[in-house]
């Protein structure tokens, strides 16, 4: 039964079941791998014809909601480093504000699609590639299950000023590196419509040396506030947050995440990681091809203005 729904802000009519299905599919993947899924959902929304500006802004809104119950669970388990989270958050808010400005500026130049696509190709390529190599190595060293990140006791980070004690993480380091990581993730959140967990989690483990058990909760804590801020910025400057789209994706997403979590426990960690790496690389490849191959339509239409 076709059930078209007219999205009030995107101003396009799409099949409601298609949106629920997309939400569900990405939900399954995020449930399996424990990732937010924004990096998959935003490109999928481009593919079904949602204007990129609406896709990015609405996805930020959806990430707030889908991370909310996760944060609550981590707060209960006391696996959130609030102090570290706050430093990351302050950086994130600055980054998001800058990112939205950059987004709007490039939109006026007609280059926002290029910015979004290039960001996807670069970050997905790097992360997917690294993850793929790492999980291949992990599978080869099958006798040592799981790769435990070695926490470096002393590196250049320990020589920076403005040190602070992060008790939950058991760290005494400068606030500059986490603040910069926050800024960087904030910019990505604003221009790519992602939470940025796929950048923040590795940065927290390898760069800041945080213990793995507080990494996910702390990153979710940062993500929820930064994406909420991004949503409000997009809503007030671009009017591109589509409430109806967000709710449909979300409902599908929550159902999908339940299914995904059940599939996830049946697979081994290395297998999961290699699957995720392949998926990230596939999305990266698809977007890269769009930039590299000659498009069938060279012209595109944008709103007028700038008189």
């Amino acid at each position, binding site marked *: 039964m076709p059930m078209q729904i007219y999205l*009030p802000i995107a101003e*396009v009519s799409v099949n409601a079941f298609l949106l629920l299905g997309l939400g569900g599919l990405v939900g399954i993947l995020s449930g399996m791998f424990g990732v937010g899924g924004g990096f998959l959902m935003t490109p999928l929304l481009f593919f079904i014809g949602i204007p990129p500006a609406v896709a990015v802004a609405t996805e930020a*809104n959806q990430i707030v909601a889908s991370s*909310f*119950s996760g944060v609550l669970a981590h707060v209960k388990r006391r696996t959130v480093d609030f102090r570290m989270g706050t430093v990351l958050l302050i950086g994130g808010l600055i980054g998001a504000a800058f990112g939205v400005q950059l987004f709007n500026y490039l939109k006026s130049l007609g280059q926002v699609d290029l910015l979004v696509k290039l960001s996807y190709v670069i970050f997905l390529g790097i992360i997917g590639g690294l993850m793929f190599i790492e999980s291949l190595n992990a599978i080869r060293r099958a006798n040592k299950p799981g790769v435990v990140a070695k926490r470096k006791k002393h590196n250049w980070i320990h020589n920076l000023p403005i040190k602070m004690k992060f008790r939950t993480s058991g760290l005494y380091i400068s606030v500059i590196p986490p603040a910069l990581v926050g800024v960087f993730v904030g910019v990505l959140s604003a221009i790519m419509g992602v939470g940025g967990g796929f950048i923040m989690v590795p940065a927290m483990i390898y760069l800041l040396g945080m213990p793995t058990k507080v990494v996910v909760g702390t990153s979710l804590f940062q993500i929820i506030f930064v994406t909420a801020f991004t949503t409000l910025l997009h809503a007030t400057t671009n009017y591109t947050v589509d409430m109806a789209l967000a709710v449909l994706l*979300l409902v599908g997403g929550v159902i999908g995440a339940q299914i995904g979590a059940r599939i996830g426990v049946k697979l081994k960690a290395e297998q999961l990681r290699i699957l995720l790496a392949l998926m990230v690389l596939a999305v990266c490849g698809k977007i890269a091809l769009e930039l590299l191959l000659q498009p069938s339509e060279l012209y595109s239409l*944008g*709103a007028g*203005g700038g008189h």
Partner: protein
Amino acid sequence: MLLRALFFCLAFALPTHAEQVVAGLSQNRVAITANFDGSEILIFGAVQRETPAPTFAPLEVIVAISGPSHAVTVRRKTHQYGIWVNTDAVEVDEAPTFYAVATSGPLDEILLETEDLRHHISVNRAIRSVGAPEEISDSEAFTDAIIRIRMNNGLYQTLDNTVEVSEETLFNTSIALPANLTEGDYTTRIFLTRGGEVIDVFETSIDVRKVGLERWVYNLAHEQPLIYGLLSLFIAIAAGWGASAFFRFLNLRG
């Protein structure tokens, strides 16, 4: 003064319009609701005349529906540094968001070029571009791109031979409005032509509006964007939290 003007109009209008068009639409308003999936407009009418119909050329009917016009920036990609990038841009001053022309015969045969210029009837004439930047020599390619892209989206339609004329008096046609409509007044013009000359025009408009929840959401997003943003967050969080609470409840029982 007003009376004199009215009298003048009447005196002037009567003799020139030997044939007049009287028409109606199946609906004068289109409501965009949450499950809006396009709409079909039926246009029908009759030709009123006081003298017998002229015989020098057959009567032809052209129906043109035009959505609100906006400025459009048309961008063209070129191959730069190995990737395809938007480089050239042309600002087109006015292009209708929707345009459909239905005719009783091939448009170029039933309408003179000069009449098309005067009344802006064909799709090409409906788009107005003042001028492209100097460095772009082929600005026509950009206007053609608007027509091509919007035709592919069903927003521009050229419907030759779809107006049925019977006995040189009655006519009817139907035009499908797609689901991806922009709000506004859709000007509907009906032209009577003989030998390529326009002999009468009838103009009315269709009011295309979002209604109900769609209207409310759209207005709130544009008039109270901060409240709208906060509400979007609240609704999304409530929906997400509610749904996962529901699943926790199911898992505990199951």
